C-alpha cells in the first residue's frame, strides 16, 4: 500500500431554526467527529486520508450521511498543499493529533 496523504475538508452551514433542524445539525457534526474529522474552526472540518482511494471512500461516506437542507461543501487537497496553510490571525486550538507522523511519543 502506498502512502500519499490527502486532506478532505468539509465546510457547512446548516439551519438551526426548528428542533428537527437542530437535530439534523447535531447528527451531521457528530458523524464528522466520530469518523475522524477534526475541527479546524467552526463549521470547517478536515480529515487525513492515507491515499486517493481512502480519500474517495471518505467523501462517499460524507455524501451518504449528508443533512437534507443547508449548505455542505467538500474539497480534497494533498497534505502538502494543506500544510502550506497560512494563519493570518489567531492560533489553532485543537487537541486532536492531526499530523501525518507514524511514531508519536506522548
Amino acid at each position, binding site marked *: *500500500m*502506498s*502512502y500519499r496523504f490527502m486532506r478532505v475538508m468539509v465546510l457547512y452551514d446548516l439551519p438551526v431554526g426548528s428542533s428537527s433542524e437542530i437535530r439534523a445539525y447535531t447528527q451531521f457534526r*457528530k458523524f464528522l*467527529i*466520530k*469518523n*475522524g474529522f477534526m475541527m479546524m474552526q467552526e463549521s470547517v472540518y478536515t480529515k*487525513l486520508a*492515507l491515499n486517493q482511494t*481512502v480519500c474517495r471512500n471518505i467523501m462517499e461516506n460524507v455524501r451518504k450521511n449528508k443533512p437534507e437542507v443547508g449548505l455542505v461543501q467538500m474539497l480534497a487537497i494533498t497534505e502538502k498543499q494543506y500544510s502550506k496553510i497560512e494563519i493570518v490571525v489567531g492560533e489553532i486550538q485543537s*487537541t*486532536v*493529533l492531526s499530523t501525518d*507522523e*507514524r*511514531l*508519536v*511519543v*506522548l
Partner: protein
Amino acid sequence: MSWRTIVISNRAKLDFKMNYMTVRNDHEITRIFINEIYMVIIESTAVSITVALLSELTKKKVKVIFCNEKRNPSSELVSYYGSHDTSVKYRNQIEWSIDIKSEVWTQIVREKVKKQSEHLRERGLEEYLLLEEYVEHIETNDKTNREGHAAKVYFNALFGKKFTRADENTTNAALNYGYSIILSAFAREIVANGYMTQLGLFHNNMFNQFNLASDLMEPFRILIDRKVVDMDLNKFELSEKLELVNVLNKSIIIDKARSNVANTISQYTKSIFDALNYNDIALIRFYRNEL
C-alpha cells in the same frame, strides 16, 4: 487503514470518547482517532487506562503492549476472537499436516539464514560465505540445526567472538527489545487473521504463548539486528527504544512493491496462512531490502 504507533512514555490517563483515544498528560490533552492507530506501547507504569478504551482498541485490532517498571515490554493485549470465523480457522490450524508445517518452517529458516548471510556480506564480513553454505545444507525441518550454528557464527561476526545472546549488556537488551516489538506485531496479525498464537509450526514450548508468532517472525529479526549494529549503544534509553520501534515504519519491498514493515508483516503472514491452507509453499511471500 491503521498506521500510527503511539508510545506513552510519561504519566498519563487514557480514555475513550467519540472514537478517539484521549491522552491526558500533566497539562495537555491529545486526542487520537482510533482507526488510525496500529499499536499502542505503554512505556510507563504511571499510566491509568479505562476498560472502555481497552475494549475499543481490541475491537479495532490495535496491539497494546504494556511495559514493566524497567520500561521493557512485559505483556500485551490479545483478543479472544480476531475474526468472524475463528472457529473454522482454529479447526484448520489444528488440522495443518505435519508435512506442510515442516515444509513451511524449512522455508522460513532458509530465508532467515539467507538474510543473515546478506547482512554480513553488506558489512564486508567474510563469515557470510559460511552462512551461504549452511543455506545449501538446510534439511527438511532443519534436522541438522543449521539455524543454531548459523546464529552463533552470525552474532560472533557482528558483535565479536566473546558475544553470546545470554549475556546481560546493552546490545542484548536492544535486541530483546526490538524482537519483542516485532513479535507483538506478528501476534497482532495472527489474531487479526483469526488464528491462535499458541500453536506453532516448530516452536512448541508449553510456556510460550506466542509459539506461532515466534515461528513466523524469524526472517524479520534481521531488520532489528541491522538497526542495533547501526546504533551507537553506549546507553539504552528512550531514544534508542524509539529508534527500534520505528523499524516498523522502515520501507522495504514485498511482491515488487515498496511498503513499510508493519504492512509487509501483514502481507507475509497472510501468505504463510495461504501456504499452510492450500498445501503450497510457492504461495509464501518474503520481503526484500531493495529491488
